């Protein structure tokens, strides 16, 4: 009589308010750190990424060492057609959904001499189109329920087009505007949408940067994101100093910016 879709993680008890979250792109970097942070806060998590080994290890750590619980699903965000069925399955497994985090992203090395259509398409696929396949489903659900929180991890790089990684900066820029549209749509339904713009964070993506500039650890980034979630922020720079830096960079007229090596 056992239903394969139901698991103990699903059982709810009226007086025990459980918060449930999906993290897409959870097996390393900011995603992993945020998963651990949310688990320590008692969240029940569904972790998604391509790497089953890493997800398994992370889930074991969460289930053994934290207040939270976690389960995982192997998913490549480029496989957009599998998302509707997967979303249903994940929500069933979790028994509900309160928070959705999209952290999946790729970045090719910062190199102004490289022209690769394949890399660029890949970048758009993962960073932006993958988001689109999830965001509509999540947004529709949260709008109907008149509650929920969506967090999308962008980048300060998306605030300006950069010579060394035009696809990455464009994908993040597109992400920011796309997410802003959802924020404007959903706020009147009681749904919070947060755009996170990290500066440099010590993850695997940092090795593709041309130079390091004040990187912070993934754990610290996760802490800042957690604070933004609690405070229901709209846009947050992580750490906050990047707000000023980005503002200054955005002020630079294009006629000057194109001459710079940033």
């Amino acid at each position, binding site marked *: 009589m056992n*239903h394969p879709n139901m698991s103990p993680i699903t*059982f*709810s008890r*009226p007086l025990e308010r459980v918060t449930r979250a999906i993290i897409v792109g959870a097996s390393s970097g900011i995603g992993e750190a945020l998963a651990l942070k949310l688990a320590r806060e008692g969240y029940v998590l569904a972790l998604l990424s391509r790497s089953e080994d890493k997800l398994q290890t992370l889930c074991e750590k969460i289930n053994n060492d934290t207040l939270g619980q976690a389960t995982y699903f192997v998913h490549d965000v480029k496989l957009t057609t599998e998302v509707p069925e997967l979303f249903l399955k994940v929500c*069933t497994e979790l028994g*509900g959904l309160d928070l959705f985090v999209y952290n999946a992203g790729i970045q090719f090395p910062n190199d102004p001499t490289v022209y690769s259509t394949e890399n660029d398409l890949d970048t758009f696929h993962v960073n932006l189109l993958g988001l689109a396949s999830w965001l509509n489903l999540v947004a529709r659900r949260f709008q109907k329920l008149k509650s929920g929180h969506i967090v999308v991890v962008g980048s300060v790089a998306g605030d300006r087009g950069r010579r060394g990684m035009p696809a990455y900066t464009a994908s993040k820029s597109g992400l920011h505007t796309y997410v802003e549209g959802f924020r404007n749509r959903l706020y009147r339904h009681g749904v919070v949408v947060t755009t996170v713009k990290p500066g440099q964070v010590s993850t695997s993506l940092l090795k593709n940067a041309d130079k390091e500039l004040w990187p912070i650890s993934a754990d610290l980034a996760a802490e800042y994101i957690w604070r933004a979630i609690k405070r229901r922020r709209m846009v947050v720079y992580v750490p906050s100093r990047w707000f000023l830096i980005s503002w200054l960079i955005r002020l630079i007229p294009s006629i000057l910016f194109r001459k710079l090596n940033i």
Partner: protein
Amino acid sequence: MSWGMASEACCYVYYPEDENDLLEIFELAKVRGMTVGFRGAGQSYGDAALNGEQILVDLSGWNRILDWDPENGLITVQSGVTIAQLWRRVVSSGWWPPVVPGTMNPTVGGCASMNIHGKNHWQVGSFGDHVVDFKALLPSGKIVYCSRLKSQDLYYGMLGSFGMLGCFLSMTLQLKQISSGEVQVTALSAANLDDLLRIIDIHKDEDYVVGWVDCMVGSSAIGRGIVHTARHLDLPSQNILTDDVAMSTHELPTKILGVLPAKYLWIFLRMFNHRMGYKIVNAVRYYLGLLRNGHRFVQSLAQFNFLLDYIPNWKRAFLPGGLIQYQCFVPFRNAYTVFHKIIQCCTNSKSPPYLGVVKRHKADDFLISCNLDGYSLAIDFSVKDSNRAGLSSLLAELDKIVLDAGGRFYFAKDSTLNPEVARSFLGPKTLARLMELKLGCDPGGLLQSNLSRRILPELHGYQVDKG
């Protein structure tokens, strides 16, 4: 959302128009590997009418009265007919539903699923005692017809099985003949719990008896309250209402004290949603009752029974956290000790109940039953984020007290039971019989709810103890 608004779940809600639609839903669920829960009017306090991330079948649209025999008081209705529809249809012919809950909003399907009781359980038993027969659809597609003489096991098993064995399609009810539609009510004050229980027991043979308890006082006044007894007024039958003007006298007043519009009163109630507020309201109620001790007055049956409907949306006063009710049933010989301990624990806790109600009960023959020869105490709590953990602990403590005294619980009101407690009071024999019926009616384990997974996960094959 649950009726008490303290729990919620996202469900895939379907509104079948007929049995064929329901069969299609069952098939869809089987293909998709999902489960199916039922919802009538969603009036259970807790999570009985929720099925998180699964299919929930809303039967409130099945609300036709199929047949009415005003000579014999037999009415056949679809399961989505509400108590409100029922009494309004029959009262002018001199009949009344023998068992009604404190609100007229539940459906008869919901009442049967939970085998609800009213303020007259000692006299007339539960809702199921007045179901002559019913027609139900099992997940296999089989339709069953059950009564006390036909498919008895299923009759006594399905009534009170909280939607786990099948879906009620329709049922025939035997109504109670009345001559006036009114009751003479007597209000008696009780100085303490001993008094209260004694007065209720003395008057148990009245048509209705119910006690309100002030749960905000301790020491010698612990358990003080007001008992209301009521007796059907026997008047010549030509007084039975026959026109709209007379019908309106049965309805609940739209103004409180003739002046304040009832629909806005919840805003005023909100100001009292804290410890001091409860103390004030309960004290005022008690002392007003004391001043009018022995007072007799006449009310319509609707006005006497449907107390929860006097103030529309009154539960909004408890938002955003909502409210829960804890109702326990305790054998007669232990009631004083147990209720005394319970009220004491509650007055000493950080989350005291704002309301307490005591009723007299008798045992019955239904498989899943909270009833015994004794009393029930129902206490209501306001839920806030700050008191959830505390309330959980408090109610777990009360569970132990009740179980030790041979007590039982009522699933329609429940929000906190865990599997050990449920197994303990139901007993191995009842559980085994329920499993047998479940395997017979629903071998695929299709029918589930948040409540059933929480209290009896083994019914669905889950080996989880989330106690």
